[in-house]
């Protein structure tokens, strides 16, 4: 059994990378816009299908379409955010609830439309990377790293580093953090709040859609994949602390590791039970997440 330990760790990290990409944009959007977007999994699903149609149409490798998928969905996000803004800034108040209802409706609409247009079959995105994998034997230990999963982890880390750089080192990032911390004061500094919100939402939707391409290549895609992904995004973001971005990578990798350990050492069918028990226990002890930095 012990010989599987390195593999369990590797699998956990690779899986954690997927969770990281699913939840980092979502966490940013929550931290700045204070909306819980139920549609996060649906954006991922739509991105995956755009990737699927582009590859089917051109015959090229799915990875080549990452930038295109990002741009298309960033534009979609840019035009969706003002709608959310309208719904949440009504005179009657309750913005959090209104955003929940609105994005829930958005999610249902997207899923319903996708099931009608794309059908209910499961597909997989073709990429050269899917064929390759690295394999080592070190004494009694055997380790396999599928290249496409490794690419997913690299993508996750690149997005994390990129977002951190944006937030910490650029004026746009300073403005985004200002809006997250004190909206009125950000306006007083000359920050265009409406535009900053749209930029954040558009980044989030673009990143989520790109993530869809990876998930489609690593696992599979179908029009009903959204809700599970949303669930994992919630899981990670709650564990990290609502809106606390630096906690997201830790929470993602923790989730990945718990899952891979359970899968390898215990009963695979208990995996989700284990994952949610851990979430429950951690929140019982620290309701504001792993680092006590959430809202």
């Amino acid at each position, binding site marked *: 059994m012990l010989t599987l330990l390195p593999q369990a760790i590797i699998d956990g990290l690779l899986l954690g990378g997927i969770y990281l990409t699913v939840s980092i944009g979502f966490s940013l959007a929550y931290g700045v816009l204070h909306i819980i977007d139920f549609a996060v999994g649906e954006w991922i699903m739509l991105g995956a299908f755009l990737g699927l149609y582009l590859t089917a149409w051109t015959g090229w490798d799915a990875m080549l379409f990452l930038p295109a998928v990002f741009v298309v969905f960033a534009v979609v996000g840019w035009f969706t955010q003002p709608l959310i803004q309208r719904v949440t800034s009504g005179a009657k108040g309750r913005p959090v609830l209104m955003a929940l209802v609105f994005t829930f409706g958005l999610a249902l609409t997207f899923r319903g439309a996708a099931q009608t247009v794309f059908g209910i079959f499961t597909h997989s995105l073709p990429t050269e990377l899917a064929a390759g994998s690295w394999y080592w034997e070190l004494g009694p230990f055997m380790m396999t790293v599928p290249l496409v999963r490794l690419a997913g982890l690299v993508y996750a880390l690149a997005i994390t580093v990129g977002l951190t750089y944006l937030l910490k080192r650029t004026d746009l990032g300073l*403005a985004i*953090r200002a809006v997250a911390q*004190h909206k009125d004061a950000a306006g007083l*500094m*000359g920050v265009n*709040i409406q535009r900053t919100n749209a930029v954040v939402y558009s980044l989030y939707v673009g990143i989520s859609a790109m993530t869809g391409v990876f998930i489609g290549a690593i696992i599979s895609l179908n029009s009903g994949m959204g809700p599970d992904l949303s669930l994992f995004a919630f899981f990670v973001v709650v564990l990290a602390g609502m809106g606390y971005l630096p906690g997201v990578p830790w929470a993602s990798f923790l989730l990945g590791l718990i899952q891979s350990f359970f899968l390898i050492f215990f009963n695979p069918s208990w995996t989700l039970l284990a994952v949610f028990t851990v979430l429950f226990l951690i929140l019982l002890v620290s309701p504001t997440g792993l680092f006590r930095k959430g809202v």
Partner: protein
Amino acid sequence: MSTLLKVEGIDVFYGPAQALWGVSFEVAKGQLVSLVGTNGAGKTTTLRAICGLIEAKAGRIAWDGREISGLPVHEIMDLGVSLVPEGRQLFPKMTVEENLTIGSYLRRTKANRNRNLDWVYELFPRLSERRRQLAETMSGGEQQMLAIGRALMQEPKFLILDEPSLGLSPVLVQDIFRIIKDFHDRGLTTLLVEQNVSQTLQLVDYAYVIENGRIIMEGKGRDLADNPKVKEAYLGF
């Protein structure tokens, strides 16, 4: 002297409750003007209306002869208005330096960022010592200095201070008032909102007294300080 800011008969509501009733006043270029009044009189609401943080249902606000009511906050700030808000309203999870840096977010000040940073640090050496510290971990006096420094980074043509002396020790209050006077002497147009009426009236060129959302009196600072009604209501004589 030409008028820089002219507020004419503004009404402001919070939901169904009216907070301001036909408030009018003006500030000329280079003047130090004060709006004094008790807690809840409508001082902060007036400032929020000027900055575009809340909409006036009636009346108009003009900047240098041009109507600015209805403009978004960031555009009003770009005209050269800077507000040091009540309760500082710093960015708590940012460092001192980041709080100052975002003061020069506007394009017209970005090019002078480093020069202005040096200047603010020279003005408030305490901030320079603490540039890597998070704003939320600083004392009230230091936070007030940071809030003023942040506004100065915006290269204001018109500086508005909302109760800068609130919660500060008497020594620090003296410091803050000295800084305000200093900038006034250098020609900066300033609107000072205070509950500290006696000291404010000694300092300013002209003052308006606001009560229950209405301007009830106005006059030169020293004249108002000698006014028996003001003495009775605000100075405790």
